[in-house]
């Protein structure tokens, strides 16, 4: 399995990471090495084997639908890069 320069730029965009041409070139070699390592899985016949998502086969717990947390807006927004009037500020999205 090989990966191309353009594919790296595409997945970097999907992952929302800005990547320069030089960085994409550097990543190409190393990612190809890792993907080759992963290719070893292809040798194994896994038909009829169920996938294992978690180590313990337990189902998701449910709890009563009641409020358990208190409002901590001020405390949690104190560490935000930019807030105004209790809202997180980001660049304008809709004209």
């Amino acid at each position, binding site marked *: 399995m090989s990966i191309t320069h353009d594919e790296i730029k595409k997945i970097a965009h999907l992952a929302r990471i*800005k990547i320069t041409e030089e960085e994409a070139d550097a990543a190409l070699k190393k990612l190809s090495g*890792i993907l080759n390592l992963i290719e070893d899985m292809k040798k194994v016949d896994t038909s009829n084997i169920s*996938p*294992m998502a978690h180590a*313990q086969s337990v189902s998701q717990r449910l709890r009563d639908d009641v409020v358990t947390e208190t409002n901590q807006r001020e405390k949690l927004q104190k560490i*935000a*890069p930019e807030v105004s009037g209790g809202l997180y500020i980001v660049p304008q999205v809709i004209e």
Partner: protein
Amino acid sequence: MKDWSIKEISSLLREKKTSSVEITTDYLQQIKKKNPEINAFITVDESRSLAQAKLADQRIQSGEGDVFTGIPIAQKDIFCAENWLTTCGSKMLHNFVAPYDATVVKKFNEVGAVNLGKTNMDEFAMGSSNETSYFGAVKNPWDLSRVPGGSSGGSAAAIAARMCPGATATDTGGSIRQPASLCGLTGLKPTYGLVSRYGMIAFASSLDQAGPMAKSSEDCAMMMNVMAGFDTKDSTSIDHKKEDYTKNIDQSIEGLKIGLPKEYFAEGLDGDVAKVIEAAIDQYKKLGATIVDISLPNTNLSIPVYYVLAPAEASSNLSRYDGVRFGHRTSQYDDLMDMYCKTRQEGFGEEVKRRILIGTYVLSAGYYDAYYLKAQQIRHLISEDFKKAFQSCDVIMGPTAPSTAFKANEKIDDPVTMYLQDIYTIATNLAGLPGMSIPAGFVNKLPVGIQIIGNYFDEARMLNVAHEFQKATDWHKAIPEGALS
């Protein structure tokens, strides 16, 4: 500076022969002296540690103390601790002051333990050498030109250089056991779900597990008594009955059946390390154990499976770092997309970006079945290997890592070689089994660890098996040259 164990400090405090303030002051001085060359701590806050120690002394004076009250330990910087800088070794969180305590931190606070500081680590716990930290590499106290292992290398180096008697750590593919092996320490990765993940910054959620690191099995057992327990705030926490891990630690291990997987002694294992492991197994025979030859046929597949599943989970977990609610935000941007992309370009280091890209790739349209689903199927096979093996033995033993501590910069430019460091540790994370590393000897003055893998929730037995070895040997008592001078 004396080389105290957690157990000794606990007795001295209970007998009022010393105070928590006195012991904490000693360790803070040792940190001041040793940390500049080792770089094991990212954050130290003397006044806060001493304030905690004073409160602990008051509790002990009034007779309210627990066995852990007043004992100073260090916290890996992956655990959120309220009002402490919590960086996870990343520029992305260089300014993140946690607004709440992780359950593990809360539990130590509740028993009155003292937090000596936050230990250095590979960025977002991705690494086996502690060279990927934004806050600089950690040095191995046994040889400053070598790595301490990773990702809990800061915790390991801090204990090895006697800057703390114990520390918390986390293990996604070997991050407790491998640094414990490379630094001559005892470390335990518990069964998945036994210790709460709440407030522990997520890397690969289905594999991440917190555990203790200390000098002896006894000390790890004391830490486990604090750390383990069901937590409704962790959706995969398991409601397992509360155990006292120190209770049966002294039991004889006569008749113990030790499984030796042939795959753990195959090509790739350093010959001198193999000899140390064989000598340790002989010691176990003298203690009354019998040896069973077993096979874990899918061992070699654990690395490819891990490097699909862990990056896939990481790419999803790390999508939260967008520069909006906390952490780093780039200073100049044109629009929202540009802000996201530049923030993440600047905030993440090379290895973290690499894993996010791999994860994004294997989860992207058209590749899901070939990679992610396939890896989950093989994960099932790996887990079945262990199930079968445990039908004929009580514990499994082998090397923790294929070699002793390697030189700094030796593997950092070759991710695939670095990933092979975890060949013996990753499979237990995939299966969710508990694993431990204890000191077994030395090769060229560098520590070697033997790994003990147990069945689900068999931590008490593993700690007993480790303790019996430590009663008969002195490897865990060795101190790096100059650590106490």
